[in-house]
């Protein structure tokens, strides 16, 4: 079940999605986090950041919309308060990072490179919930290229940009990121979304807009992962709407090397382990001896059918 996610050596292909599993410690009493392939933590910028006002989330059919706004303790706070526990898990730690300028991203990467136990960086260039940083960087291939190149120079850690889903052609971004030195790619982040309270006629989220996650976005994510896989020369970490093994296996077949469980953690914290066991069972049942055998195994020829209209 081993997977090498662009230098992040995972003992299995299942991690958690940034922002849905805190800093690993919060769920550790409910889930054996040492069984995860990696732990991906909430987005971190250089300094502590207070995020958006409340309400920060709203439930919608098929998922939720959130606008947490990347609240976090900053690099120092993270290293001091959360890394000690994370190191005890023995599991690779992927840190999701962001900034409001290329320099900030680079500086965060530089500092985290010196923190013991950090295994890789997920570059968040696709958060719909902050004005600067986030989605603005992620929706212009040149900006992605320039940002990834800058951060690349600042660290030797495996670098995994997390692409924005709200683009017409994800392939441009895959190429831009990998040519600029990305070791892996993560997708997808939440879809920009909005929910209005029709009685008050105000947006429910204090931030007005937020990001849609959960099963609602799964078919969109599969399409993007599959499309990305057409041109990706680096491994893909897929996420978006995984609630059990089936959605994860879809991602692997579409071309992902590993998967991350997000929103489902909130409802059933054992989801990542169920997904893991389900993938194992699937591989056994289909006589496959590695995740790699499943990755990108999508067969594009339809079976002979009488289905031509």
């Amino acid at each position, binding site marked *: 079940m081993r997977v090498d996610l662009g230098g992040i050596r995972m003992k299995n292909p299942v991690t958690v999605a940034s922002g849905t599993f805190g800093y690993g410690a*919060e769920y550790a009493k409910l889930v054996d986090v040492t069984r995860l392939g990696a732990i991906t933590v909430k987005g971190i910028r250089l300094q502590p950041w207070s995020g958006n006002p409340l309400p920060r*989330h709203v*439930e919608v059919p098929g998922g939720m919309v*959130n606008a947490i706004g990347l609240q976090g303790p900053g690099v120092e706070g993270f290293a001091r308060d959360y890394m000690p526990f994370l190191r005890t898990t023995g599991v690779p730690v992927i840190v999701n990072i962001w900034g409001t300028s290329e320099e900030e991203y680079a500086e965060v990467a530089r500092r985290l490179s010196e923190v013991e136990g950090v295994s890789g960086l997920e570059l968040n260039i696709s958060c719909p919930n902050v004005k600067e940083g986030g989605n603005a960087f992620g929706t212009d291939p040149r900006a992605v290229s320039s940002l990834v190149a800058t951060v690349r120079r600042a660290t030797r850690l495996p670098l995994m940009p997390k692409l924005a889903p709200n683009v017409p052609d994800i392939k441009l971004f895959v190429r831009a990121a990998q040519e600029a030195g990305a070791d892996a790619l993560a997708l997808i982040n939440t879809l920009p979304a909005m929910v209005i309270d029709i009685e008050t006629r105000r947006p429910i989220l204090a931030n007005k807009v937020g990001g849609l996650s959960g*099963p609602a976005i799964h078919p969109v994510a599969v399409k993007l992962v599959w499309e990305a896989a057409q041109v990706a020369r680096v491994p893909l970490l897929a996420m978006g709407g995984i*609630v059990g093994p089936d959605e994860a296996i879809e991602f692997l077949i579409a071309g992902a090397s590993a998967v991350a469980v997000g929103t489902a953690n909130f409802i059933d*914290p054992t989801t990542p382990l169920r997904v893991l066991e389900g993938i194992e069972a699937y591989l056994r049942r289909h006589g496959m001896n590695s995740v790699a055998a499943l990755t990108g195994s999508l067969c594009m020829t339809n079976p002979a059918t009488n289905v031509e209209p």
Partner: protein
Amino acid sequence: MMKDVTCRVIGQVPLTAGYWALDMEAPGLAEAAQPGQFVHVRVPGLEPIALRRPFSIFGAGGTTLKLLYKTVGRGTAQMNRLAPGDSVQVIGPLGNGFPLAPQGEPLLVAGGYGVAPLAFLAERLPTKGVVLIGGRTADDVLAVAAFERLGWIVRVATQDGSLGETGLVTVPLDRELARLREAGVTPELFSCGPDGLLRAVGERAIQAGCRGWLSLDKHMVCGVGACLACVQRLRREDGTEWIGRVCRDGPVFEAREIVW
């Protein structure tokens, strides 16, 4: 120590209009429960990805877990259908409860379903005192008999005057505080209810120079501190501010901690 438990419904009874008391077998969870802590309930029958709903622990004895809830939306409406034998996934006990060794004479102030954690507290506090229950109407006044059975003095205020005195519960609260002040007794306030009530109780605690324990009701997602949906700006003793997670650092805070 929080656990993810498959509970079995023992039964539930309708109380006043819209309010229900739900009993479940929650082995491993109920035993550990402390007043002021809460549980995170996966409501059966909602879509598989519907968020969990948080509820204060209304009581715990042996392996039995008691909740008291008000039907306000689709999750609680669905809970009305729970029948004996049904399975419910419950995570808990969560958060930090009320302190159980008060320094002053306990004075409890409940608003609506805020009685739930206070009834459990009344059971576990070493000394009895007065509990004030406020509601919009008589229907919003719950658990009076339970408090009385435990030896607590209950005063009720309803906004429409349909039970107890007419008006906000802060009216009898101010009277109680005056009485205690005159008697030279330091009170210790415990409150759960809507933000407006908590704020009013907190102000009075600060004014009275006593401790005031407030249980906050914030919309939650994870319930364990992982998602940052339920944050609250807080103040340390040294005056510096920080952002706490109500689910993990609360839901109970001392009045002075909270930056409203």
